[in-house]
């Protein structure tokens, strides 16, 4: 029987999922959104469903009733949500099940529980994972917040229970600032999530973000596939990730991995998932949260373990048992990922939009490119700014950094500005080379002129002069303009000389 898989997502992850799903014999179906009609991912699908979402406020990718309706109309048996959008929406997972479709991911109940951070923490405590000190559950009043803050000591962090992406989150340095921040965080949380519940925790300075990849089946078999370090973030958005983390010793890796598995077992988790830890300057680690989806940075784990995570997500959803044992997992070499975002790093990462005049990525056995764009793609602001991911693999960290720099140097995206020049600077920075970077690194080190380079400036001045000379010549002699083929300073100057 035909296995019809709807990928309720777009961009590079849609293409990534299709690649593996086709190997497993799925017919792959995607939506064509009116907000992104000529998208690259459409070329990879077996079938395309027109979404007709031009007049809707949100795109098809967020519209549960419409997705379900169209899926039924097209005899969809399986739905993969990708990441973002509805991937961690328990109502969507439930709606799929209610309409006899297989949701590629864990149960709605698992998604719901892990989405509520207070519940996730209760489970973590039960499983014996270290937790950051804080309120036990939701803090209902400023008075209660004051008592808890005094107990654990400032600075503290106010966090929205339903939050994410930094919204509804406030660092409070001293008691006088508590009331004001409590009120504004609550207001922001209500606006963003329709839920103003806040909780409090001890604020950790110099934190590193370490996450463990988990795979579990429906029969209680759970393994971890090592960690990823995702500390290089800007406004809680990851930019560069690496696996393994330079901050973990083998002993700590084993211990944290065991705890991650223990946690997943405690909650009865199945599918691919990620357990996030915060590692502080003393090397102590704390459970943060669990993500119940495939993550953007999953390829670095795939490169160092040789395991296809999407394949296992699909197999597990089809009730297959996990045949890989923990002892089969060997971490091999080092992998780094850079997210190529359409953002202007010279202008505080303002989003860029426009037309991709040309795009070139280097390819090799150890450079993996996951792209959602091609020449002619239009980048608009309807969707997030990630265009592509460059992922490299090598035998050790220094070589992986070197390879990534090379890959970034060879990548050319003409038409819009991207974060690539910024990554080149980061990868050459001593803090990154030494692995000494925290989630605050960008905040502390970014300046709009961080990208400035003496030699580039000289080349820029040279180019401007050549262009000026060409323009001037055109005016003066009315000769036809030059093509780039005969762009030669020497030829040009002979002509100027006339």
């Amino acid at each position, binding site marked *: 029987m035909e296995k019809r898989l709807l990928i309720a997502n777009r961009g590079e992850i849609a293409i990534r999922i299709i690649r593996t799903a086709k190997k497993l014999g799925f017919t792959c179906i995607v939506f064509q959104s009116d907000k992104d009609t000529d998208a690259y991912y459409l070329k990879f699908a077996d079938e395309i469903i027109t979404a007709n979402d031009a007049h809707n406020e949100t795109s098809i990718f967020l519209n549960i009733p419409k997705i379900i309706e169209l899926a039924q109309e097209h005899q969809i048996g399986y739905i993969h949500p990708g990441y973002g959008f509805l991937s961690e929406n328990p109502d969507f997972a439930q709606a799929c099940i209610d309409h006899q479709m297989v949701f590629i991911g864990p149960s709605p109940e698992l998604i719901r529980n892990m989405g509520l951070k207070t519940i996730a923490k209760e489970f973590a405590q039960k499983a014996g994972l270290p937790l950051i000190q804080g309120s036990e559950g939701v803090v209902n009043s400023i008075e209660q917040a004051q008592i808890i803050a005094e107990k654990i000591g400032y600075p503290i962090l106010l966090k929205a229970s339903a939050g994410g992406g930094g919204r509804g989150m406030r660092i409070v340095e001293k008691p006088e600032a508590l009331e004001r921040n409590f009120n504004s965080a609550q207001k922001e949380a209500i606006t963003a999530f329709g839920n103003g519940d806040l909780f409090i925790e001890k604020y950790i300075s110099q934190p590193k973000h370490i996450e463990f990849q988990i795979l579990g089946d429906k029969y209680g078999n759970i393994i971890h596939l090592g960690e990823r370090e995702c500390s290089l973030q800007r406004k809680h958005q990851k930019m560069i990730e690496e696996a393994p983390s330079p901050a973990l010793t083998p002993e700590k890796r084993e211990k944290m991995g065991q705890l991650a598995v223990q946690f997943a077992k405690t909650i009865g988790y199945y599918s691919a998932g990620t357990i996030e830890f915060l590692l502080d300057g003393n090397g102590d680690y704390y459970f943060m949260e669990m993500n119940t989806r495939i993550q953007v940075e999953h390829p670095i784990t795939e490169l160092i373990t040789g395991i296809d995570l999407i394949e296992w997500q699909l197999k597990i959803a089809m009730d297959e048992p996990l045949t890989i044992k923990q002892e089969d997992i060997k971490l091999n070499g080092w992998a780094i990922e850079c997210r190529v975002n359409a953002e202007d790093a010279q202008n505080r990462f303002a989003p860029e939009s426009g037309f991709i005049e040309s795009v070139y990525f280097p390819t090799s056995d150890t450079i993996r490119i996951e792209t959602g764009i091609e020449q002619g793609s239009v980048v608009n602001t309807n969707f997030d700014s990630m265009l592509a991911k460059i992922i490299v693999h090598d035998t050790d960290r220094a070589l992986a950094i070197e390879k990534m720099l090379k890959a970034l140097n060879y990548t050319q995206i003409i038409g819009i*500005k991207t974060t690539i020049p910024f990554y080149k600077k980061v990868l050459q920075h001593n803090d990154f080379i030494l692995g000494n970077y925290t989630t605050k690194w960008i905040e502390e080190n970014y300046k709009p002129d961080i990208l*400035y380079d003496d030699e580039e400036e000289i080349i820029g*001045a*040279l180019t401007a*002069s*050549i262009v000026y000379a060409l323009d*001037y010549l055109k005016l003066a002699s009315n000769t036809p303009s030059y093509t*780039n083929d005969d762009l030669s300073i*020497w030829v040009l100057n002979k002509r100027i000389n006339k």
Partner: protein
Amino acid sequence: MATQYIYKRDATRLFIAISETGKKFNIYLPVESNPIINNVELPITIINGCISSYCFKWNNKRYTCIVKSKEQNKYTILVNGVEYKFSIESISSYLRRKLLSTEESAKIQNVLRAPIPGKVIDIYVSEGDLINANEPVINIESMKMQNEYALPVNGIVRKIYVQRGQSVMKDDVLIEIDSIDE
């Protein structure tokens, strides 16, 4: 020496690029050598065949340049994805602008006077030529000794007051130049 007489004294090949932060680059585009930037010949070569961009190689590094925008003489160039802005002037427009600004016009005139009495043996430059700072422009013989003289500034030769074979007195004006230095 490569840089000694490198300008070949053609002022139409010199362009002055001023960056957004006020940095000045004297860019000389020669006929048959590498570009000379701020009096130094740099081993920058062109990579041909780049589409909609200007590609260069310098010290084994590749630079892809795209003209993001141009408005009159203001250019925004993306060099390997990083934006740099310049205003470009030819030497004549640069000097005209400097002369119009009373503040700066004082700095323009530079005169070479004969330091000792003697006879002009040779003049290496012509009016309109570009000269480099400290590059000999004239040879004067006095007391059976030939001496070369230079100006301490970069500029363009405005007027030559003497001829070959002519005798000069101490402090006679020999050559007048318009400085292109700040």
